[in-house]
């Protein structure tokens, strides 16, 4: 779960990580009021998209009037499907230098990794390897002071800057562990007269650990359908095509999408309904897909924990109660295959045994010759 900047900064504040003075504004008047208090300000759309700067959703304002105008403008924007409902109005920092600092988990080493660079800002991805320090942390030993000394030596940093890093990184690491973060990123980490200030805050909490953090606000930036899928514990992503796809397992669902595209079709979604779903859940997944009004429905089941008869039964039930009148391409093999196939036949659906046949059939039906 990604956190909005202002929530990430609240966490920073709680861990004694310096942040700019700022206020949250929900309309232009509040933004102007904040500017009256803070002087020169920066106004930032509170959205989860990473490209606010390039999209123009960050603006400076010298006075309350300008703050009002810019706030008005930004509140009208649409950023990555989502509107802007909140603005963070902060004192404009006198930035001398922009650093980059992040902590995440590296899948390759299976350990936390601290990333530090003296070249922060918008183009941090282009920083050459030798100017980006990657420090892998033994989770049992944790982040120790000597690591700051060595990181700073490699960066060629001493004096006050080293003291700032020595104070900052251990706090950030503690936050990282204690809130079960997947990623904490400060970019830019502003160097000012007053020392380091986190000018931005990107914090992503591990979804699987959210149950341990009931105090965190729930943040969702999803479509209504995606939210509904989440409630049903389905992995669902909307796409632009016409062929609705449902399969059991993330890998095989991806492979199904790949094949649809390979044969010239366009997937309408990604829907992995997981393993071992019961009739009820399978039926709900189907209903959700049908609600998106696709042109063709492609179901690809390779039964393992998932039982073919359960999927077929769910399909039959939905067909009877709600009606399914679009073309369906159904692939069904694996556990209780014969039973499943029989159920489908009763409701007039012929099923395929291979993914290849099923996908080709779906694509053909989508583009009648």
């Amino acid at each position: 779960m990604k956190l909005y900047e202002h929530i990430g900064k609240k966490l920073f504040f709680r861990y004694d990580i310096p942040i700019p003075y700022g206020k949250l504004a929900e309309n232009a008047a509040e933004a102007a009021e904040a500017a009256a208090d803070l002087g020169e300000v920066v106004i930032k759309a509170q959205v989860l998209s990473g490209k606010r700067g390039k999209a123009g959703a960050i603006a400076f304002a010298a006075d309350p009037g300008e703050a009002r105008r810019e706030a008005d403008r930004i509140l009208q924007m649409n950023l990555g499907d989502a509107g802007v409902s909140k603005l963070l109005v902060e004192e404009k920092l006198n930035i001398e230098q922009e650093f980059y600092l992040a902590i995440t988990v590296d899948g390759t080493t299976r350990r936390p990794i601290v990333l530090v660079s003296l070249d922060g800002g918008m183009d941090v991805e282009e920083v050459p390897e030798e100017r980006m320090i990657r420090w892998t942390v033994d989770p049992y030993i944790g982040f120790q002071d000597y690591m700051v000394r060595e990181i700073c030596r490699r960066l060629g940093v001493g004096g006050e800057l080293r003291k700032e890093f020595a104070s900052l990184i251990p706090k950030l690491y503690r936050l990282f562990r204690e809130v079960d973060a997947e990623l904490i990123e400060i970019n830019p980490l502003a160097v000012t007269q007053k020392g380091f200030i986190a000018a931005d805050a990107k914090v992503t909490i591990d979804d699987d650990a959210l149950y341990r953090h009931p105090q965190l606000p729930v943040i969702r930036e999803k479509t209504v359908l995606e939210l509904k899928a989440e409630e049903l514990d389905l992995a669902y992503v909307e796409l632009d095509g016409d062929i609705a796809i449902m399969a059991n397992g993330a890998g095989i669902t991806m492979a199904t999408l790949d094949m649809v595209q390979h044969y010239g079709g366009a997937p309408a979604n990604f829907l992995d309904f997981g393993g071992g779903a019961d009739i009820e859940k399978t039926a709900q997944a189907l209903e959700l897909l049908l609600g998106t009004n696709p042109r063709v429905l492609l179901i690809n089941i390779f039964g393992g924990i998932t039982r073919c008869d359960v999927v077929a039964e769910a399909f039959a039930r939905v067909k009877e109660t709600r009606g399914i009148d679009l073309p369906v391409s159904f692939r069904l093999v694996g556990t209780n295959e014969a039973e499943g196939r029989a159920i489908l036949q009763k409701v007039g659906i012929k099923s395929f045994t291979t993914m290849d046949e099923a996908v080709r059939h779906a694509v053909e039906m989508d583009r009648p010759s």
Partner: protein
Amino acid sequence: MAIYINQDTRVLVQGITGRQGSFHTGQMLAYGTKVIGGVSPGKGGQVVEGIPVFDTAFEAMEKEPADASILFIPAPYAKDAALEALDAGIRILVLITEHIPLHDAVEIMACAESRGATVVGPNTFGLVSSGLCKIGIMPNRYFIPGPVGVVSRSGTLCYEIVGHLTENRIGTTTVVGLGGDRVVGLHFIDVLKQFAKDDDTKAVMLVGEIGGSAEEEAAAFVSSSMRKPVVAYLAGRSAPPGKRMGHAGAIIERGRGTFDSKVKALQKAGVAVAEMPAEIPEMIGDLLSESS
């Protein structure tokens, strides 16, 4: 010779009294796996599928020493059960559990490393040395002995591919599911090293997907040290960048781990990359007859 596990591997089931645990204990026994005990706190003394249940892994190890343990433990308790198994002396830990918190997985791996134990998963279907020992949840009938070593990040997609092989009467030596999470114990490269040394494995099937850099690392290993033919299939060609698709690992980050970068790396290493699962049996069949 089989890698990781074989007909003598003694297997413990943690969470044996649950729905999944008991069902798959039966399935593993049916496959021929030497399941020798189960653990379920507070249920010691019960019997599941003819297998004795113990209160703790220590008790199990005292009474029925095991080499490997498979965990059917809900995510919030999985770390504790994994550390228990490692502390009690388990050498191979198979973590079926999905949704284990990331930082818990990090700790499990660090603990396993300090004890020199092997972890498969989490969020894996397990592993099987075909015809000898299955420690996992995959359907028994697809896993018949043969010359192909299979290693996969996905579950059902792996069954799909092994199913294609089986239909074409191509069996497997060992099939390993790495698991779909960001932090997993075994990576492609670990399993490839074993396959490289295993005389019975004549060819290797690698089932990857977008995200992470495990496929690129595998390609580097194949290029430098692998003498056996390798076929790969990768899922996620059509995935839009940055969208999350069920596997936490399947996020495209910073240009690394894209479909194209993986295909390019593998092909450069001499790996044959299949376009579709259905092509795989023929590709492997050809490579096997070439090399023999």
